[in-house]
């Protein structure tokens, strides 16, 4: 049994995510689309907090809302006037896009509702049962080499980020 406040929060955030993700892909002003995407990202991070992953929600806000969205806004303002409307593709491409996405949405929702869902534990019970993840566990998982510990991917990501810095500078510099 979850608390009423939790359920109300869920409905508000889910409605926000649905509305703003549709607005992101239908708005013709690109700066507004980026702002709507920011609301979607914050809504997803509220879901992470609600599910009991506090560290993940903080990372989502810091990396997505703080880092990637700033990059997006810079790129948009470097390449567009703020009031510029983006062009549309030909009519048949739009028809294909609308029919394909609506069809896949309906199929996925049908599959979800008829799927035999395993795992009957409720959310609050699962969080209350001592399953919440502390920073200590996360640190252990990222710096160990045993089973279910991820030192090698962690280092690989650090090398990826380094190569991404160098690649970004090389690609975008003036010749």
């Amino acid at each position, binding site marked *: 049994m979850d608390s009423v406040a939790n359920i109300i929060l869920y409905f508000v955030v889910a409605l926000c995510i649905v509305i703003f993700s549709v607005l992101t892909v239908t708005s013709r002003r690109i700066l507004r689309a980026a702002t709507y995407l920011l609301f979607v990202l914050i809504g997803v991070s509220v879901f992470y907090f609600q*599910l009991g992953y506090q560290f993940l929600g903080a990372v989502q806000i810091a990396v997505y809302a703080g880092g990637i969205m700033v990059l997006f806004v810079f790129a948009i303002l470097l390449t567009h006037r703020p009031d510029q409307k983006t062009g549309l593709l030909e009519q048949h491409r739009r028809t294909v896009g609308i029919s394909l996405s609506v069809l896949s949405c309906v199929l996925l929702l049908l599959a979800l*509702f008829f799927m035999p869902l395993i795992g009957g534990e409720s959310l609050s019970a699962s969080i209350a049962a001592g399953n919440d993840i502390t920073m200590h566990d996360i640190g252990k998982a990222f710096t160990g080499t045993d089973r279910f510990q991820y030192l090698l991917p962690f280092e690989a990501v650090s090398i990826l980020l380094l190569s991404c810095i160098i690649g970004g500078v090389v690609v975008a510099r003036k010749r």
Partner: protein
Amino acid sequence: MDLEMLWYLVPSVIMFCAGVFGFITRKNTIALLLSLELMLNAADLNFVVFNRYLFPGSMEGMVFTLFAIAIAAAETAIAIAIIINIYRAVGNSDITSAQKMKF
């Protein structure tokens, strides 16, 4: 009334399909990138929800999502560098105007 797994999967499905729609129909490369972020976030949310409801004792879904967020940041930075380069070469950032490579 309980918050069930299905409740979290439905917004995720709608986010993913909105991303597919944007990726097919938009002309602007930055708008394509925004749609890509929507799809990535839907996948991340699914990882976390399945982790919480099906395997509440472990944290593999959360670790996958953390790596996915790091890789998405790297990918976005490189993609924006390429978009700015396309803008310098052809004067706008539409996919229809970037049709020729140098060699």
